[in-house]
């Protein structure tokens, strides 16, 4: 007897009321997209849990994939049998025997959901525990702090046995919170912000500002690679690459050095907001962390934010750099982010940007420049790439591998 299914317990969405079905259905879709390479699996879902029937597909790679799906609190390998005591005992024993159990302690936690079943949960604990004990060597009982907790649930449709809970990614299913634009630079912070946004159920589209020849093709490739990493969690993601050279040069020419950074940021936000409107998203996500750099002081945020009333979500606002780096490493974007290619933020950085810019001054400087046509041109020439987990930018290489 082998584990034939995976039981999935939902995350925070169990607190949802009448619209819970929307969340569950979305999770089911996200899971089935994630596992599309395993054609034989079947997904059954109900209000409070989901089952993946393996139908012979290997469970190890599926477990790894599930760990990246938001909306899952935890999951377990499970076996199902009929509501019949001897069969339940056999199944529980088989479940234990598939683990390295020697020298370990265990307990049985039975739940009788189907009250028609003639044995109560205490009786079940006793019967199953005794059976396991009799048929194994080197396994002892510890009801307080067991290494192996054999969970047996007798439900209407059958009995489920699980031994080990694996933690899921938590959060809400991607797409259940609506859509937002992620400003993605190529640094360490913005991919982490995107990850956290998706964790709360947001679908994201990434916006990257590209300033050739000041920034190289490699910098663009780096952003594509980062988005590809994020697709592990978010499925397909659109990446908008905005040609930004002309806007940046114009600002650099017309706005005094210490204010050029603020103006540049304002232009970027304006463009992102225009793209947001076009893509029908409702918010903008950034990787800003309060006080980290000159453009991320409260004064700067105030002046930059002034160009739009769209909600700007800053998941990292109160995080320290070390905490951000920790997440970046966990989601595997860190090593890409630290590659040393110039991006549009580093290239025109003034020597001493204002950390406490004044709104009036910015407005006065900008009134002398007419950026709008350049901004519109940048939006019109924005290139959009749809990236998924299997995305390969260089199709020309395909036949080489």
């Amino acid at each position: 007897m082998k584990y034939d299914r995976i039981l999935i317990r939902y995350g925070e969405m169990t607190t949802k009321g009448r619209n819970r079905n929307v969340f569950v259905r979305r999770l089911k879709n996200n899971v089935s997209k994630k596992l599309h390479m395993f054609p034989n699996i079947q997904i059954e879902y109900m209000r409070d849990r989901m089952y993946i029937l393996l139908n012979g597909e290997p469970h190890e790679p599926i477990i790894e994939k599930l760990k990246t799906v938001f909306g899952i609190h935890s999951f377990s390998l499970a076996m199902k049998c009929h509501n019949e005591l001897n069969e339940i005992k056999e199944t529980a024993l088989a479940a234990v025997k598939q683990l390295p159990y020697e020298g370990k302690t265990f307990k049985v936690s039975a739940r009788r959901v189907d009250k028609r079943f003639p044995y109560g949960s205490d009786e079940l604990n006793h019967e199953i525990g005794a059976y396991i004990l009799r048929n194994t060597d080197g396994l002892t009982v510890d009801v307080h702090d067991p290494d192996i907790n054999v969970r047996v649930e007798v439900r209407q449709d059958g009995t489920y046995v699980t031994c080990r809970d694996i933690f899921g990614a938590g959060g809400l299913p991607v797409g259940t919170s609506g859509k937002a634009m992620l400003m993605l630079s190529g640094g360490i912070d913005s991919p982490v912000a995107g990850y956290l946004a998706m964790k709360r159920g947001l679908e994201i589209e990434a916006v990257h500002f590209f300033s050739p020849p000041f920034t190289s093709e490699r910098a663009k490739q780096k952003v594509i690679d980062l988005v590809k990493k994020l697709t592990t969690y978010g499925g397909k993601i659109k990446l908008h690459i905005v040609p930004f050279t002309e806007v940046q040069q114009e600002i650099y020419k017309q706005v005094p050095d210490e204010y050029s950074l603020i103006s540049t940021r304002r232009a970027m936000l304006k463009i992102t907001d225009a793209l947001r409107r076009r893509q029908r998203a409702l918010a903008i996500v950034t990787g800003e962390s309060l006080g980290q750099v000159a453009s991320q002081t409260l004064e700067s945020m105030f002046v930059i934010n002034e160009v739009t009333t769209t909600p700007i979500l800053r998941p990292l606002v109160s995080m320290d750099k070390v905490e951000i780096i920790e997440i970046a490493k966990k989601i595997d974007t860190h090593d890409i982010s630290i590659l040393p290619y110039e991006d549009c933020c580093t290239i025109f950085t003034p020597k001493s940007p204002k950390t406490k810019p004044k709104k009036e001054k910015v407005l006065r400087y900008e009134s002398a420049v007419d950026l709008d046509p350049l901004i519109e041109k940048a939006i019109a020439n924005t290139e959009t790439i749809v990236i998924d987990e299997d995305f390969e930018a260089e199709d020309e290489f395909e036949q080489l591998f």
Partner: protein
Amino acid sequence: MIYLDNSATTKPFPEVIDSFVTVATKYFGNPSSLHELGMKSERLLTQAREQIAAALKVKPSEIVFTSGGTEANNFAIKGVAFQYRHRGKHIITTAIEHPSVSEPCQQLEQLGFEVTYLPVNEHGMVTAEQVKKALREDTILVSVMHVNNEVGAIQPVEEIGALLAHYPKTIFHVDRVQGISKVPLDMKKARIDLCTMSAHKFHGLRGAGILYVRQGIRLSPLLAGGGQEMQLRSGTENVPAIVAMAKALRIALEKYDKQIDYLHEVKQAWLNELKAIPEIQINTPVEHSAPHIINFSLKHGMKPEVFVHELAKSDIFVSTTSACSSKKKAPSKTLLAMGVGEERAESGIRISLSFENTLEEIPIAVAAMKKAIEKLSEVTR
């Protein structure tokens, strides 16, 4: 032509050569160059690394490209020895390793390291128990091959890995040059820290190899310089051969999935035929041996070199012991270690198969072998 020397080298897949030529002509840039051509070359390298890592179920950052198996073995052994020499100076390996493992070990002995060479049993195998007994407080490295190149014996790599899980200060290296694409091995499950593979043994080209370096293992580089390969192996990357290797590995593993049963069948048919020849003694162990290597000895003092040359006249290619040592006139190290005696160890012949070999070749090759034996018997009598 009937090619039966696949453990010496394999015939490159035509698709693999196509990739090599395309990359060498079209994308010849140096991956470290800043311009477009360099960038394409770098992408190719990255893609090759990702594909190989996925095929081996490890991380791309754990794949280090080398010039081949010999370099990877040298790098693993000396890299560990130099990096961890303050931790200890004891190394455990086996008596039947490929020279690219045993020779570096001997070099290290001259530098003050102590090496234990575990003997093998009559089936050409070591046991995890032997490793356990040989382990010491100062053991920094255990190096055990996956599949022996001369007789095909499969070593209990997973058991040794499970044992070494209790010795976190001892690094586990596996030479998987003969095993890859023929004998499955889950590197994570076997808790391998370092693992050697070589492209030309799975229908890639010479000049490219892989050392898997598990995350967290540090190695002292053998080649210092421009810091390529994550600072571990300097030297401009051989991108054409590496891309070709990634493709070869993909194709070889696909062939494994489709044809492994057939390969077993071919090997069994070979064994049945060879057993029926009275002048031949089979050396390859019946159990725990790879599906592609058959080693046998010629009786009555027949010279194996002459046998090889005689067969070559009919375009049939086999090998005396391993190719690397077959130019030296020496008894097979593995056969000696298995305790078959001097005479039998001196007359070893190796047939090594690939997924290209067929059942249909066997009667032709066997007939030629019988003829060669007849001829040789005349001379020796």
